[in-house]
């Protein structure tokens, strides 16, 4: 996107852009102009020629290996992700994730508006963790302009974030089990997730893409009805989780399908920058909420669950334990939530942060999500860079998926919990 050249890179491609393009959209001098029709035709022609060359060499040499395109419309890639599989029979030789089908230039959009106008976009980057992404952005700007956040707002933030984490994990639970071939838990999980979405509708008004966080506080207070509903939800969720455990974790087919599949070793995890539950399943107790506490997370009692195996089952078990920990945090937050203002009335509407660089990261259900902001002292951000967890977590599949069967790739991809707009942004 910037046109940087990197020495000794094994496979230097244009990211998200055609190989033959000569523009760099994230540079400041870039003008918004469409490609001319001639340019596009030329690109297509070159690409078609390259494709034909590949297929003709394959045909000429009567090779046994072949290429399979998995996606972008494959149901188990969870969105518009394309995996280019180089296969020999049923065994994978090489996996190449092809990204960019859901690219919406979120970072560039941030540079084109003022700080207020980027409010609704973070929750669209990862649509399963909208509240937490909202916090990520709002937290960055709060760090840049130095606003106080009221006590009640802090509690509200923790409550909605943990509910969001539960909703996201429930969605993943159902979808992952569907990937490995069981349909029933999907419906159970959606029933619980529906309850959480109803609660979000009571506080924010939207059900999927929220815009609930404001600089210095929240958009509106949590209503007492919503808090009551959340309190009732916790014991219900606990009993359901126990049921799911019996239903799924004890099931021998599921165990056989996931144990020992897709092992991410410690070295691999560090090399690729894997974060979140996938990292914790490899044995690192790294959670942004513990290691770099933001908000008031250091006032609650909870543990970071880990596993040592690093396989798909380990990642599954860690996420299930995380749901229990979320319930634990929620329980404490809901009993301790104080009365008071939900918003800081001193928060400015229009502001110019001091020039400088700011970074703030939150623990999203998929890993460390951080926003890096450069301010040049004007009303518009100079640059907003999102460090999204799925982008790094997806790359690890290149190493993990090799020498596996095709059906296991579906299982590995499911256990990594990829959200495609989060990869592409």
């Amino acid at each position, binding site marked *: 996107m910037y046109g940087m050249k990197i020495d000794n890179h094994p496979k230097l491609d244009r990211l998200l852009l055609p190989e033959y393009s000569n523009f760099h959209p994230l540079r400041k001098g870039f003008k918004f102009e469409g490609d001319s029709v001639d340019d596009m035709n030329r690109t297509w022609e070159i690409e078609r020629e390259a494709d034909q060359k590949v297929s003709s060499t394959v045909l000429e040499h009567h090779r046994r290996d072949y290429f399979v395109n998995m996606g972008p419309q494959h149901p188990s890639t969870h969105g518009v992700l394309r995996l280019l599989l180089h296969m020999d029979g049923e065994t994978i030789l090489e996996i190449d994730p092809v990204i960019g089908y859901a690219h919406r230039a979120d970072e560039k959009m941030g540079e084109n508006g003022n700080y207020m106008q980027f409010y*609704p976009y973070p929750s*669209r980057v990862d649509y399963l963790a909208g509240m937490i992404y909202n916090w990520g952005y709002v937290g960055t700007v709060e760090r840049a302009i130095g606003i106080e956040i009221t006590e009640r707002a802090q509690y509200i933030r923790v409550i909605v974030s943990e509910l969001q984490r539960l909703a996201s994990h429930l969605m993943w639970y159902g979808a992952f089990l569907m990937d490995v071939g069981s349909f029933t838990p999907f419906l159970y999980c959606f029933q619980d997730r529906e309850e959480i979405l109803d609660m979000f509708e009571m506080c924010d008004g939207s059900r999927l*893409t929220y815009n609930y966080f404001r600089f210095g506080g929240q958009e509106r207070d949590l209503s007492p009805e919503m808090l009551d509903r959340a309190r009732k939800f916790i014991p219900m969720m606990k009993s359901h989780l126990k049921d799911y455990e*019996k239903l799924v974790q004890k099931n021998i087919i599921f165990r056989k399908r996931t144990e020992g599949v897709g092992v991410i070793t410690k070295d691999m995890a560090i090399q690729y920058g894997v974060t979140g539950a996938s990292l914790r399943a490899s044995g690192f107790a790294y959670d942004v909420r513990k290691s770099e506490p933001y908000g008031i997370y250091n006032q609650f009692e909870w543990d970071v669950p880990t596993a040592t195996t690093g396989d798909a089952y380990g990642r599954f078990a860690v996420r299930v334990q995380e749901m229990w920990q979320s319930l634990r945090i929620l329980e404490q937050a809901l009993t301790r939530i104080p009365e008071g203002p939900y918003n800081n009335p001193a928060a400015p509407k229009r502001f110019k942060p001091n020039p400088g660089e700011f970074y703030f990261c939150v623990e999203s259900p998929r890993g460390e999500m951080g926003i890096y902001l450069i301010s040049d002292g004007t009303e518009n951000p100079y640059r907003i860079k999102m460090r999204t967890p799925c982008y790094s977590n997806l790359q690890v599949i290149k190493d993990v998926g090799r020498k596996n069967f095709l059906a296991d790739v579906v299982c590995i991809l499911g256990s990594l919990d990829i959200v495609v707009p989060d990869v592409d942004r």
Partner: protein
Amino acid sequence: MFKNIKEIFTGAWSILVGMFITFKWMLKRPVTIQYPKQPTRPSPVHKGRIRFVIFPATGTHDCIACLKCQNICPSDCFEIKGDKPAEGGKKRPNFFTYNFSNCSLCSLCIEACPTKTLEHSPEFNLASENKDDYFYNFLNDVEERKKKVDATVNR
């Protein structure tokens, strides 16, 4: 050999346990709502499309065509033109369109409006096959709604 037999038995047992749980859930009250037959209501703060508030005191909206909503909107949904009326007084809009298909329902326009004359409508079944249905002319819209003030959608 012995291990395999044991595995078969534990496997069968786990499936039986799963069946038992599924059966238990079958006896519970269903949580689904038969939507078109059984009406539902969104929550009171539901974010539907943007519309003008009809103030009971004046019987109409209170827009002063200050363009604040147009400027804050991240998705350029509004197109507003306004004039001062000939008889003097506040500026009033004479052209006010809103494109729902661009709107990201972020409520920034509502918060920016100095006269508090914008709100989210509680409608939720706005799906349409025609793109033009998502262009609302607020001045016409407000007249139409005034006619059916007591109708169901108007809270």
